[in-house]
């Protein structure tokens, strides 16, 4: 089944200079391998195309089901120079909630918030 990432993982973004880091944490240990396999740095960068202007590096901490995407050139030159209304990029992590993942049907019971938005 195809599901939006928001049912599989939760996110937070932080700023440092012109770099935004976006943390993606699986809700469940059994879901993490699908997340790790499908949400590569390349796909992440493609998903944020035009908004993240520099390279994206991915770091993982497998035993905590965590991935950290470090996105350069994501904050319009840095918090104080940015013309973006969200100059800290606090909402940036929410974008990846819309990334589509393919999850085995048997994992349905482990997904979070199914039906929360009438999906």
């Amino acid at each position, binding site marked *: 089944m195809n599901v939006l990432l928001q049912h599989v993982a939760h996110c937070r973004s932080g700023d440092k200079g012109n770099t935004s880091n976006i943390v993606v944490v699986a809700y469940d240990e059994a879901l993490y391998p699908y997340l790790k396999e499908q949400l590569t740095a390349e796909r992440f960068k493609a998903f944020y195309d035009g*908004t993240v202007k520099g390279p994206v590096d991915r770091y993982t901490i497998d035993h905590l089901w965590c991935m950290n995407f470090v996105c350069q050139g994501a904050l319009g030159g840095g918090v*104080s120079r940015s013309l973006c*209304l969200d100059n800290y990029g*606090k909402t940036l992590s929410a974008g990846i909630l819309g990334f589509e993942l393919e999850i085995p049907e048997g994992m349905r019971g482990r997904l979070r918030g199914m039906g929360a938005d009438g999906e």
Partner: protein
Amino acid sequence: MKSTLRVGAGSAWWGDRVEPAALNAEKGDLDYLCFETMAEATISAAQVRARRDPTFPGYDTYLDDRMRAVLPHCLKRGTKIISNQGWINPEGAAQRIVHWLREFGAHGVKVAAVSGSLITDRVLQLTDRILEDGQPTSTLQSQLVSAEVYLGAEPIVDALKQGAHIVVTGRVADPSIFMAPMMFEFGWDALDHMRLGAGNGLGHLMECGAQVTGGYFADPGFKDVPEPWNFGFPIAEVESDGSAVLTKVAGTGGAVNLQTVKEQMLYEVHDPANYLTPDVVVDFTTTQLEQIGLDRVRVTNISGKPRTPTLKVSIGCAEGFIGEDMFFYAGPGALRRAQLAKKILEERFKIVKLDAEEVRIDFLGVNAIHGEMSPKDRPEPYEVAVRVAARTKTREEAIKVGREVDGMAVSGVSMTGKRVPHQDRTREIIGVWSSLVPREKITPSLSFYES
């Protein structure tokens, strides 16, 4: 030596709520209450303000509010305070705190100020390259506003060793504020990188306050937390080996769970195996987390590597101005009217010869926040705001943005909603650059005051 040290957070930034700090002071049974009140540009902004406003004392503008709220409780319990509210005037902040101590009838309480992080007058001699772009720092000379080194926990520990009950600092790395009590109480050596790694890691978990206790977290139907209007700030119950239980005052809203802790652990972190601080290089990849009770997460095995030979320097530069404004549309066709408004503004900016480095005209409700990645096949919004911003070299140019938006009131598009401007629509940009300075070139200084 203490068996368990109770360290609580009192603020995560300048504008943070005061009431959870008072609650931590009153009900947290704390040995230490720690305040973090600075952002990257705080020092530079304070320098600019101090030049224009001789009445600005140069420390946290909420120092009085925070100290009035917590001091009576801290004095009663014997809770010590570590705070970076000193900004560009730690001595002034310390004297102000002494004033409040006397107001509350506390005499003989020692307050220390930690200075020495400001190196504006010699930053160009002490540093070589800008980290962000590799250019020599000397290229920043004409724009330089302020430069400050991120100090570590050591000067705070020295102040505690000399009997300070309250330590107020200028720029110190955020996690170090929270680790200093651990080093002092447990006698950790400044080169014991395993313990300092654990301590700094805990400091990092605490430095953003409610962000580890349920703030910046709730998402209805996905991540619900109780009473998100009533957060408690974090408390760490720290052991001498650097392991800890993270918790908060019972009865407060929010949550301390594996999810809140994981999100905060990597917040503003790049490589989690190499999180650089002045005291140590923290390695979060070894961390073990365990939920041991309601709102109680046990954090163990954060590790560390030896500190680097350099300290980070933050260099604030006057880089020009931003002019910005907003107006709005609603109902069927809101977006098409907004699009015509955008076209009008683009033409107007040519007519008035707006000299800008960058101009952005976005539709709030469509693409003003996430920019180019925003979905193209979205449904049309019922309401949309046109938000326009430009970055310019001079204030005169930045003012043109608001003036042209003014023109949209009677010379714009049908059914344009616009507010009468009631505030300055320009602001000064203080760009922040980074560099490195050899550790041995920086000598923090302490001064002591007594109530």
